[in-house]
Structures are given as C-alpha cells and as structure tokens.
C-alpha cells in the first residue's frame, strides 16, 4: 500500500550536473542530500549523504550498483564499503542503521527533491 505524503518539490540541480551511473551531493534546505543518476537503468535516487557507520558525509561519492536476483539498487560508502539499498535505505551488509531516502523526480532537465 502506498501512502501519500504531501511533499514540496524543490528544484536542486540540472540532470547534467550528476555524472551518469554516479552521484553528487546537493545542499537542500541546509541538509546534505546524495543524488544518484542510475543512467544504466534510467532511474534516479536520493538519500542522506551521511554514512551512519562512521558518520562521514560521503555516500554521494560512493559507487552504485545492484545486488541479488531482484537487482536491488544500492550504494557503497567509499570509506568502509557499507552498502545501503537505494530503495529502502536499509543497510545490506552490516548492522548499521538505515539511511533516509527522499522522493526524487526529473522534469525538463531539472532534478527535484520531494521535501516533507
């Protein structure tokens, strides 16, 4: 079941600002948000930039990829390679807490983050 939450769509950057199959960090309302351009799948994701493992602002610099039969999209923190689901934010290879994910959409070459 989907729940609809009212979000405000904030324009953040151009699609060309985010490297294909990679990420970059954006400053949104004072928060650090990691934005991922999963070009290989034509998908976009946004999560918190902070890796909960050692409290480092680094996830946007991590490599993205997928895991398992269902090809769950994930990002690996560049510091110690903790990986997190880009769909749910869940830590996939350790006991770290989940990371926050944000709604994201792309219109006319602009990336928007859904801010609750």
């Amino acid at each position: 079941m989907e729940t609809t939450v009212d979000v405000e769509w904030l324009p953040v950057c151009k699609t060309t600002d985010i490297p294909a199959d990679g990420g970059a960090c954006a400053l949104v309302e004072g928060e650090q948000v990691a934005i991922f351009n999963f070009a290989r799948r034509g998908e976009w994701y946004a999560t918190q930039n902070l890796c909960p493992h050692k409290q480092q602002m680094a996830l946007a610099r991590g490599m993205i990829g997928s895991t398992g039969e269902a090809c769950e999209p994930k990002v690996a923190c560049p510091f110690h390679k903790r990986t997190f689901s880009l769909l749910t934010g869940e830590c996939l290879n350790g006991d770290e807490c989940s990371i926050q994910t944000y709604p994201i959409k792309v219109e006319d070459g602009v990336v928007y983050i859904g801010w609750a």
Partner: protein
Amino acid sequence: MVMQHLPTVVVIGNGMVGYKFCEKLLAKTSAFNLVVFGEEPRVAYDRVHLSEYFGGKTADDLLMAPLQWYHEHGITLHLGDAVQEIDRAHQTVHSRSGLVQPYDYLVLATGSSAFVPDIPGVEKEGVMVYRTIEDLEEIKACAATARSGAVLGGGLLGLEAAKALLDLGVPQTHVVEFAPRLMPRQIDAAGSQMLQTKLEALGLQIHLSKATSSIAGEGKIEALHFGDGSILEVDMLVISAGIRPRDELAKLAGLEVGMRGGIVVNDEMQTTDPRIFAIGECALHSGMIYGLVAPGYDMAEVVASQLTQGARAFTGYDMSSKLKLIGVDVASFGDPFIAEPHSRAIVFEDTHNGVYKRINISPDGKYLLGGVLIGDAEAYNMLLQTVNNKIVLPPHPEDLILGARGGEANEGAGVMSLPEEALVCSCEAVTKGAICAAVTELNVTSVDGMKKCNKAGTGCGGCVPMIKDLINGTLTAQGAYIKNVLCEHFDYSRQELFDLLKINDIRTYDAALDHFGKGDGCETCKPAIGSILSGLWNDLIVKQNTIQDTNDRYLANIQKGGSYSVVPRIAGGEVTPEQLMVIGRVAHKYGLYTKITGGQRIDMFGAHVSDLPDIWEELINAGFESGHAYGKSLRTVKSCVGSTWCRFGLHDSVSLAIEIENRYKGIRSPHKLKSGVSGCVRECAEAQAKDFGIIATEKGWNLYVCGNGGSKPQHAQLLATDVDKETLIKYLDRFLMFYIKTADPLMRTATWLNKMDGGLAYLKNVVLNDSLGICADLEAEMALLIQNYHCEWKEVVENPELRKQFTHFVNAPKVKDPTIEFEPVRGQKVVKAW
C-alpha cells in the same frame, strides 16, 4: 495487540541472555504473551563488546535490537523498572513502580553484578566497577584528568578494563592481581609469563601477589595500600575482581540458591519452583556459574525449547575461549591444566616473538586434551574441534602447533575431516553437518549467505574462516569448479576477463557488463574492471570515473572526515630546493598538514575536494606531476644516495630509481606497487621489502621480486643476478605485465607468488626463459602502457568540465563541507577524531 487469553511469560532482566531468550522463543512460537522487566534505562546491549564504546561505538551501536523490535514483536517492555518481589503463591511479580504482573512462567535473567571486595575505602570517589554503559561513562570522565589508574584484578575482564584505561590515555596504567600470575583460571603459568611480558611491553605495569588492604585518600582515592606494606599512588581504581550472581530476588522468594551465590537450576534450567527458570550468569548449574555469553544463549535455547514441548537440556558448556587482549591473542581450550601422568605436554616457546603454545595430549599420544595459545591463536578453531570431536591425532602431533615442516601443507582439508555433529559456530549452535547441508541442499555458497541461512558466524565471528573452508570444501567435494569469480555480476576470474576484454576490444565498463556480466555491477567489479581496462589500454581513468574507487575518482586519497591528501611525484626521492619551496608555499596557502611519507615523498593532508584542482594547477605549473598515491599503481621507487655521494656505493642507484619510476608511473595494476633501488649490499633503500627491488652488485644489478612490508612482511626473492640495465628493464617489463594480467583483484605481488603453482621457479622460467612463449607480447603490451601515460591531474586542470566535478555541493560549488573539522597539533592541523 496482546491476546489476553495467551499464557504469559515474564522475563526479569533485559540483558544479552534475556534478549536472546525472547528472540529464541519468538522463533519457535507466538503462543505466549511476553512481558519483560529491565532494571537499566536502556534496552539490552552487547556487553561483550562494551570496550568498543571507548573505540567510538555509540550506545546505539551496541544495542542487541532497537526499541522498535520489541514493539514489532508484541513484547511488553518495562525499562528502568526493577522487579522487587516474586509472589509465588499468586504467580505475580511486583515492580518498583507498583506494577503487579501475573505470570504463567517466569524466567530470571538477572545476570550478575561486579564483585566488590570488602576493602576499607572502596566507597571513595574515583573507585569504580566495569559493568554497564553508565560505569563506562564514569570511567571515561575520571580518566580525562587521571595521571595514574589501576585495575584491581588480572583476569579476563580486568585486562579488558586495563585496555580501556590505556585507550583513554591514562598515562600510567597498573594492573593489581592477588594471584601470583595473570589469568590464573584460563592459562598455565608459562602462558601467563609470556602474556605478562607482552603486556608490559605495551605499557601496562603489572603487580602480582598483591593483597590490597586499604584504599587511602581524603574522600577521593589517592593510593592503594597492600598487605606487604607497599603503596601504589593512583587517581582512579577500576575493580574487576569477578562477578556476583544477582540472586537476591530468588532468595527472597524462597528459591534455592548456592552457598556462594547463584540460583540453583536443573538440566532443564528450572529452579526449585518448576514454573520459574533461571538463565545466564545468575544460574548455578551443577555448581558452576557460566560467565560467558555462549552458554547463556544455550540456556536461553533450553528454556525456549522447554516452553514449547521440546526436550533440550543443558549439560554444561565448554569454556574454551579465544580473544584478543590489548592486541595479544590469548586462547585456552579443553583442559589447559591437565598434567602428568594424565597427559603429556608439547610446548613451543618463542620469547623473541612472544609466542607460547602448549598442547596436552593423552599418554598414548592418540588424543588432544586441551591447551593454551598466547601470541598466535590461528590454530585455535582446529585444535578446539580436535578436542571436542576426539579426532585421532596425526603421527606428529607437534605439527598442530608448529605447522607442517617440509612436504605440502594441506590447509582446509582438516576441516572437512570433522564429524558431522562437530559444533562449528558455538554462539549459535550450528554444526558442520548443518553448514554442509546448507551448501548441498540450499545452494549457499558464501559466508554472508550462510549467516542469513542459519546465523552461523554472526556471534563472535571466530568461526568464519572455518565456515569459508567448509563451504569451499563441500563445493569441491561436489565436483564444483571453484574459481575466484569477480562478484555476483561477473562469472569470470580477473585473468579470464583480462583476456576476454582484450580479444573483444572492450574499452568501457558498460560494454564489459553487457557482454560478459549481468545486473548493474557493484563496488567490487567496477574498480576491478577499471583496473583491467587500464592494464589493457591505459586510457585516461577520469573518462570513466564513476567506476573508480573514491581515491581514483577524485585523484587524491580520502582521509577521515572526507578531506583528501595530495602527493606529487618525487621520483627516486630526489627533490630540488625550488620544488620544496613550491610544496611549502602550496601547503601553506591551502592550510595543509604536511608529512614525509615512508616512500620518500611529501604528503599534504586536509584538502577540501573543491580546492584540489587549484592546488594541482599550482603544482603542475611548477613542474610537478601526479604521484598516483591514490591509485593501484606504482607508488614510489625508493633509493639510497648511491655512488654519486656514498663512499660505499657501487652504482648510481638514484638515477636508476628515477628512470624506473618514470618508466612505470601511472600504470594501473591489480594492487599498488612499491620499489626500491640500493647502490650496494648495505641495502639502505630496503629493496628486498618491495614488490620489485634492485640491488647493485660488482658486476651489475640483482633483481628481487614479490617482497612486501605491511601486515605480513615477506622478503623479496632473487629473480635475476648480475644483469645489466637493459636486461633488468626487459625482465621488469615482463614481470610487471605478467602480474598485471594474471593476479586477482587487490592481490599484492607477494600473495600472487605464494599462490602461483610452481612458485619462483615457474616465474623465473616465464620471465627469464620465456617458457610460455609470451615474453614478446608482454614487452609489447608494456610498451603500449608506457606510451599512453598521461598525468591525470594535468588533464583535469586543463579541462573545465572535469574541474567542475571537484565540488562538494553540486548546487553550491563554492561551499565547502561544513562537517569537516580540524584541530591544531604541533603547529599544524589534523582532522577531528571519529
């Protein structure tokens, strides 16, 4: 939603064992209404790893499960509310806050408290115990100003506490033990002696045979007075003199308790009231209190089984253990103390490296009975299994602790010879049979998969190497061909992919994934393929920077906090005064911490990602190039000063080092490469500790290969003798290219050679005698890589599109990451600790 008609199980105590009981019961049934009382304000946390609280873990990191877990599983949890009375007649418990909770079954998991001996003065300020997170916070606060601290008790916990004091930076840390040696309950006298020597070398001051008679001080502790009249001045004291079972509630309720504490239980963990169970450190089973977590978990399993009509019983527990105490391996297993005439001991003692090993074997030499390992406990798992499964010993049992000397070592085969019922993971009670069955029946082929499947390896983690061996052994036995495939996305080894990408002229990661892989890739295969593509074509890596690890993506080394460090190339360690001034100026301008590296270069730390292009622009304008300190590539060719200045030098080692460094700079390899050139046998460049090292001889140069410093030092081996420079470089081209093409990802040359069938003799044949007929190819491939060299930083500095990627905030390029914080040290800055 709680179903009222379900029978109610009340658990008193929310520690590790109490939590584990809930988890185990819920795994079997949901036919109970579970109510938990905890005295501490926190939910159950991992006390075994408590000392990691000082190492940066937070209280949340240590939780067994978050609060939410209890809600999700319908458990009613009362925290900070101790049970004060058990009314057995009415089957109710009464809590401090006034709750009256009926029960059908009651589980006492009240644990233990620290035993505080009755020494005059224990009530003084600065005297603490080591038990809960609150205790740790108190210790931390006290340690901040203490000049000298002592731990009372030289047992396992006492030494843990001493480590905590060392870690907290207490300048003088003492351990005071009543017995004449450390850890008297676990290890023998010779083992204690070795442990003591090692710990003293680490800065601990150890006082044995000391009976503390009083604690002196005006309100606050100032000194310890001992029975022999001696005095030790300290500002703080942590008491770790053993545990005392928390049995007061049981005693009050009229349940039988032991003379020296502990709630008496039978094999079903029932107390003298059959509706009341006791588990963990508060339970007294056959006269034993078990102060380890694994038997506590086993007791939890027994009660969960009893409540669900199971028949598990507790029949005692093996107290074998292995741990790292302040960095020193300590293990004891089976019966560590058994002596003549019931056993014979084989002892190995190496005072040079601080290793002590003792095994006790049966008088007929057939069985292993127990033993002690200090300093090196690698053999622990296998030895423990040999004891527990009564495996008949080989003709030379000394091999068990010394390793096979001469002949082929056959690692891993030992694990497969264990009986099916051998307990491999004692924390989660998983047998060898269960692990092998998971491989054959459920197609589990990785340790991670095994953890998910049956929890094996999720406790202390000590059995993980055995699980790995069992998985591989079972797969081999099934006839499966085990090769080191890259990851779940590529079913090929690195060497296979190297050939495939070459033959098919593949030049991008995406094309490689489309042709030979599946899924979307991951952090393992992306940089591995990146390394292969570089090894084939040596294209500019910044063209495909999102497949690179962060260091290669930002062409700098990421450091704690997220800043980067910058290393310009200083070939052979030769640098002009003008270049030094440039480095000094740049470091000063951008506020960088500078340090000489181990490889004769200068590293500048603390650069913001957005400053990197500007920093490099200045360095490049002054004639510097990238030092590739961030890459899996040639780092540095260290040199001694050689015949130009040195009165012993035979040849010009500096010129050769510079020539070689410039020849191979920037070339990507499976792992980093280090080199050295020495001008004579005095070997000042330490060339024999490098991936390839060159030493001048009267007649030319000797070439050594596959050495390593680092965590597993290994001397390089002599590949060629007395060769001239041209031959030397030809051999180096072949050797390096052969390594680049055939090694696994992130495999250094030393490991590569160790795993090579035929070893050095084979490598010599390939490189010197061209036994594979590939030397011409190897040389041509290397020539192509050398020809395609670029300074990556020059490309970035000159390309505005590439420069743009060096920002922290894509939508605020001028803003630096505000979370990076520095603090001053010795006139420079360092990053704040994490």
